[in-house]
């Protein structure tokens, strides 16, 4: 497993703009009197999961670095939506920090009715990890690249791709539209279910975030295409969708969220403190266990990423509903 001791390697487009060196944040400057009590970390997913582990690890780092007290609780439901909705009612005193996913604010407000928030309802002091997606198929499939897969779909009249989230279904549909072929997303009950359908040969391919990596290493599967703007270390020869000329990506970040209107001085303090925690050795080691490296876009970078992705999804759903 490679552990890169680089502090930030954001994978998204937004990352290029965020080239500020880490040292700037190494000492977080906090206003006097903050925090006036414990800072609650509210995780948008259940205890025992990946985001939960990230939040708990970073909370421990912040407690060590800053001397703060940070209890971690979980508010799972609706793909992170329950936690986001609950933040709307929290005081903007910087004592409640949500830990969720960018997808919940970029996609959900447009995909579902009755969502009370948009991405503009919150502030974002930083991100913690990037999730990258790949299109993968069984190793003995008669196609090895996105282009060959598209040809296969064209010859057969259709090809099925198991998926685990709306964002991924949309990515499949957009790739299909780009090439004008019939790709059918088959929604599974989570990533494991989608992977199982592909491993059993019940679908022609699947889009996965991380569970397929060891399948590739074991020689059971191959990656046809990488759905973010840079190639990934476990499939260095696989082209990205951008390289293939398809402007479709599906990336997400583990995201810190604040209720709107927190004192800018406190926001700067939190941004700095979180950046220091995501750069720690202990956190880098946890990321290595997840087969990745820390990815903190910082506040400005997070907003930029979210704004761009939200605009994309808004346009897609507006076009669908017409």
């Amino acid at each position, binding site marked *: 497993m490679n552990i890169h001791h680089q502090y930030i390697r954001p994978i998204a487009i937004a990352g290029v703009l965020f080239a500020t060196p880490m040292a700037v944040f190494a000492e977080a400057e906090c206003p006097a009197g903050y925090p006036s009590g414990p800072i609650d970390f509210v995780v948008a997913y259940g205890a025992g999961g990946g985001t939960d582990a990230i939040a708990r690890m970073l909370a421990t780092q912040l407690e060590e670095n800053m001397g703060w007290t940070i209890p971690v609780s979980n508010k799972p439901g609706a793909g992170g939506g329950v936690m986001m909705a609950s933040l709307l009612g929290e005081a903007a005193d910087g004592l409640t920090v949500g830990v969720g996913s960018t997808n919940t604010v970029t996609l959900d407000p447009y995909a579902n009715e009755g969502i009370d928030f948009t991405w503009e309802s919150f502030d974002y002091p930083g991100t913690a990890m990037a999730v990258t997606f790949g299109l993968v198929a069984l190793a003995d499939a008669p196609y090895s690249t996105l282009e060959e897969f598209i040809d296969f779909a064209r010859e057969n009249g259709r090809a099925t791709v198991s998926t685990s989230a709306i964002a991924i279904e949309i990515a499949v549909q957009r790739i299909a539209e780009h090439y004008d072929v019939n790709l059918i997303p088959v929604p599974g009950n989570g990533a494991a279910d989608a992977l199982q359908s592909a491993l059993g040969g019940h679908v022609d391919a699947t889009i996965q975030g991380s569970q397929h990596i*060891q399948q590739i290493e074991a020689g059971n599967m191959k990656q046809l295409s990488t759905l973010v703007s840079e190639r990934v270390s476990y499939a260095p020869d696989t082209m990205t969708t951008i390289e293939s000329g398809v402007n479709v990506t599906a990336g997400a970040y583990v995201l810190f969220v604040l209720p709107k209107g927190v004192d800018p001085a406190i926001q700067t303090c939190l941004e700095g403190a979180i950046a220091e925690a995501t750069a720690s050795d202990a956190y880098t080691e946890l990321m290595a266990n997840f087969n990745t490296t820390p990815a903190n876009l910082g506040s400005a970078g997070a907003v930029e990423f979210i704004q761009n992705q939200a605009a994309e999804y808004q346009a897609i759903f507006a076009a669908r509903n017409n």
Partner: protein
Amino acid sequence: MPDISIVFSGLADAFTLGNLLYILLGVTLGQIVGAIPGLSILMALAIAIPLTYSLDTLTAISFLISINKGGTIGGAVPAILLNTPGTPESAATALDGYPMAKKGQGGKAMKYSLYYSVFGDVSSDIVLITVSLPLAALALKMGPIEIMTLMILAFTVIAGLVGSSLVKGLMSVAFGFLLASVGLDPAMGSARFTFGFIELVDGVPLTAIAVGMLAVSEIFVKISEFVVPTEGEDATDSAQVFDKGDQNVTFAELWANRVVAFRAMVIGTVIGAIPGLGSTTAGFLSYSISKQSAKDPEAFGTGDPRGIAASEAANSAVVGANLIPLLTLGIPGNIAAALLVSAFIIHGVQPGPLLFERQGQLIYGLFGAMLIANVFNLIVGQFGMRFWAMIVSAPAKVVYGGALLLCITGMYFAAGGVFGLVIMLAAAVIGYIMRLTGFSVIAFIVAFVLTPQLERSINQAILITDGDFSELAHHPIAIGLLVASVFAIYFLGPWKKRESLIK
């Protein structure tokens, strides 16, 4: 076959003092949490995972698996003694366990439950250790089309659970369908019947429904009996469950139900090895098949040890078998297994096809720990029985009042606040009315548990086959399951019971 030295050094790793203590602690914790209605094993696992960050990998995973194993024993306790199953899978145990306890043989019922549970657990562990690779390959053949037909078979088999009236039973099933359809529509990905509650997007929470319908509604029934005592039954005295003489179970008595127990173990292992199903499905399927295929189905539900064997051996066998897809393919079979995946990853171990190759010693250490946990389960279970016997010897008003309090506080934690609590209490009121009017709560729960999987696999099957039924010809397993469904309706359907009643 892995290197024999790795097998032995792995097994030896399991026998450190620290490991043994954590396994003992895990099993005990699991039995207690499982026995308390309202607290769920999933919740215990989720809370325990962050506590294991500082332990070494084998100890951490052994501890978590021990909690899970302990839970399969503990869940049956309140089901048998109070008829308030703390988990949906132990509801099938209550069907015969509680009538047996009411006859004054509560200790006997608990022993049957403990022994058959450990039997199911040990057997499926042995299957996991010896033939997990071929079984996992077989489980992969179960795609959406096969799962869909398996669900159809499950619905035909559980016909034996509809209760005395077929019409009322079917109405309960329909209600289960309806309530299970709340949440994200698997075909469109849009929210359905959520009435603006974002909490309902993931569906009505199963734990809240199960604890409300099965446990709290029964507590309501009991509390109402304190007010208006029913004739010939002294509801205020729950100590009578240990009244009638010998509470021991002999080997001959256990051996007498060997066919039922073995079949239950096979059903549990197969269901456990297929990702996405789970112990509730296994327990009810096994119970229903045993009942409907028995010469005397009317004996079931009156305190028949075969009922306990069918339920407990099956739902416990799921725990070991669930690790088959997890350890061989990296695919978690249910939520408990998914929590184990995150524990593995946090400790730097990637579950997947290379796990045996890269972490052979750890896996055999884990197998060793699982076998030790089974032994501890048996020992702790024996001691636990005396403890539970003491608890229920308290006045019934205290026992049921305390149980209600635990359900409420437990649900508040498990469901993350008041919303789950409201759902639980609403389910309890509906369950109470259903009990009073003769609608089967069990039929409702089973339909509620099976429906999401049925709907999802129908949707997937339609997408994969492009709606073309002739595609079925390429799926021999699915055809076999459909044929089995027809047989199940004919041979296991409720008509048999009618005939025997007419006679």
